[in-house]
């Protein structure tokens, strides 16, 4: 284990008992992932590769069958609550204003309402939400909802943030803008981020390292360091280095698709988004 490793996942396996005498299902087998402090790491994989199970284990929502999750080199007493978690859907509460949604984490850790709101307000500009503090979430566009959800995760103040396909439901243009914006925000604070996505290009563009997972049972089939210079601009996706990485990462995914385990794109279709 290298020094400065923030999150270290070793030999992680998860088997779900088959219901009603059915066969046991192995969702994860011997998964190992390491993230240094301040690193941006992505996991790419087809649906059903166990990404959600992995996230739920790291967030402390599900207990692994075996293996360990180490934070700062040691096993935390209680994993639940030690890691910031942003689910796939924005999960904003429609009965709270945007401001009161973003302070949720602070509120639950006992920060006084006034102070929590002041701390949240200070970030609204940077998160592209200036002016909508007192609005209901229903009035926001898809991109703004995701930014509000990110701000809520960010303000909860955990060192490690798990982001589960945060841009999966956005259209291509908004998605590209959000990726650039996320990099800018991350650049300023250097939180440790573990990011799940379907999109290989998104993973390369954002990350220091990309893990490819293949399904049934879920395991890491490839790990690639992304040594592209930062700060990155969208044009980088045209560079030869980028394309080489893309090809490298796509191969195991295509093999998985060809070899029985079909590669299914379960991102919502455009119709579903509208």
């Amino acid at each position: 284990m290298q020094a400065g490793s923030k999150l270290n996942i070793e030999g992680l396996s998860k088997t779900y008992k088959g219901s009603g005498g059915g066969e046991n299902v192995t969702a994860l087998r011997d998964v190992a992932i390491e993230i240094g402090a301040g690193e941006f790491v992505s996991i790419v994989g087809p649906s059903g590769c166990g990404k959600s199970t992995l996230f739920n284990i790291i967030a402390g929502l599900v207990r692994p069958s075996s293996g360990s999750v180490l934070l700062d080199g040691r096993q935390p007493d209680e994993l639940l609550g030690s890691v910031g978690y942003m689910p796939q859907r924005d999960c904003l509460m429609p009965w709270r204003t945007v401001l009161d949604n973003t302070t949720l984490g602070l509120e639950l850790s006992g920060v006084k309402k006034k102070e929590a709101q002041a701390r949240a307000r200070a970030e609204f500009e940077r998160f592209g939400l200036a002016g909508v503090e007192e609005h209901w979430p229903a009035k926001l566009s898809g991109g703004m909802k995701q930014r509000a959800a990110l701000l809520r995760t960010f303000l909860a103040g955990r060192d490690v943030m798990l982001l589960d396909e945060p841009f999966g439901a956005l259209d291509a243009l908004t998605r590209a803008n959000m990726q650039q914006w996320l990099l800018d925000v991350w650049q300023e604070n250097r939180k440790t981020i573990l990011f799940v996505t379907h999109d290989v290009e998104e993973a390369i563009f954002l990350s220091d390292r990309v893990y490819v997972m293949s399904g049934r049972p879920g395991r890491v089939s490839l790990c690639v360091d992304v040594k592209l210079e930062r700060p990155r601009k969208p044009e980088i996706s045209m560079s030869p280095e980028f394309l080489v990485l893309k090809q490298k990462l796509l191969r195991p995914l295509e093999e998985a698709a060809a070899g029985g385990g079909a590669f299914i794109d379960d991102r919502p279709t455009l119709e579903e988004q509208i």
Partner: protein
Amino acid sequence: MFARGTKARRVAAAVLPPVLFALFVLAVWQLYVVIGDVKESTLPKPTDIVASMWDNRTMLIENAWVTIKEIALGFAAAILLGVGLAVLIRSSRKVERAIYPWLVVSQMVPIPAIAPLLVIWTGFDMRPKVLVIMLVSFFPIAVNTIDGLRAVEPELMNLLKTLKANAWQRFRKAQLPAALPFMFSGLKVAAALSVIGAVFAEWVGASDGLGYLVLVLNNQTATTDMFAVIVTLALIGISLFLLVTLLERLLLPWYYESRESEGEGLHRDPDDPA
């Protein structure tokens, strides 16, 4: 668009059609009775009903007061029972399995038929009336609140867990507010039922109240006066319904404002073409 008076216009557009329609129906009724020379004991003229209401105003108000008190207590008891059962049923799978079927079965029991029993058990005072009203109107509150408590997104509950919210905080901050719009739907149905319940209860055993008055006047074939009582009962029902709606508007501003703005997209990302 008209900048001024748009609100007045909206109110007029909402109120005028039903009022005009009611006036039309009343006019046809009046004409039918006058031209067809219908006996007063069969169908009185609307104008006679209004006159009777004015002449008997003291008696109507005194008896209405009795019935309103019964409805207020019965409705409050129905809310307590309905919401209490809903929370109990949603608190655990086992409790849900044990109670829910019986909740449905309880609605197969014709309450008016057991009303005389309730009188035998509890006496001729307020108690059997409050009980009947409660039994007639708690069901829609319970069922809708149960659905509402189920309506909260599971991802939101998980998110709250990762923010260290305990069971009570998850209930108060997520499940309860998510359930409120559903609960109010149930309250509106219950409001109408509670007036019916009050009339039933008074028919079984009472010495005052509007339901009792209907029974007495019917025996005397004082049809016009009976109609005056029925109109008073209807006014009470309408008032209760409007009161519930007003409360809903005050307590759930987000619910209405979010629905109104749906699809309008007041705040869009400049980069969000959707």
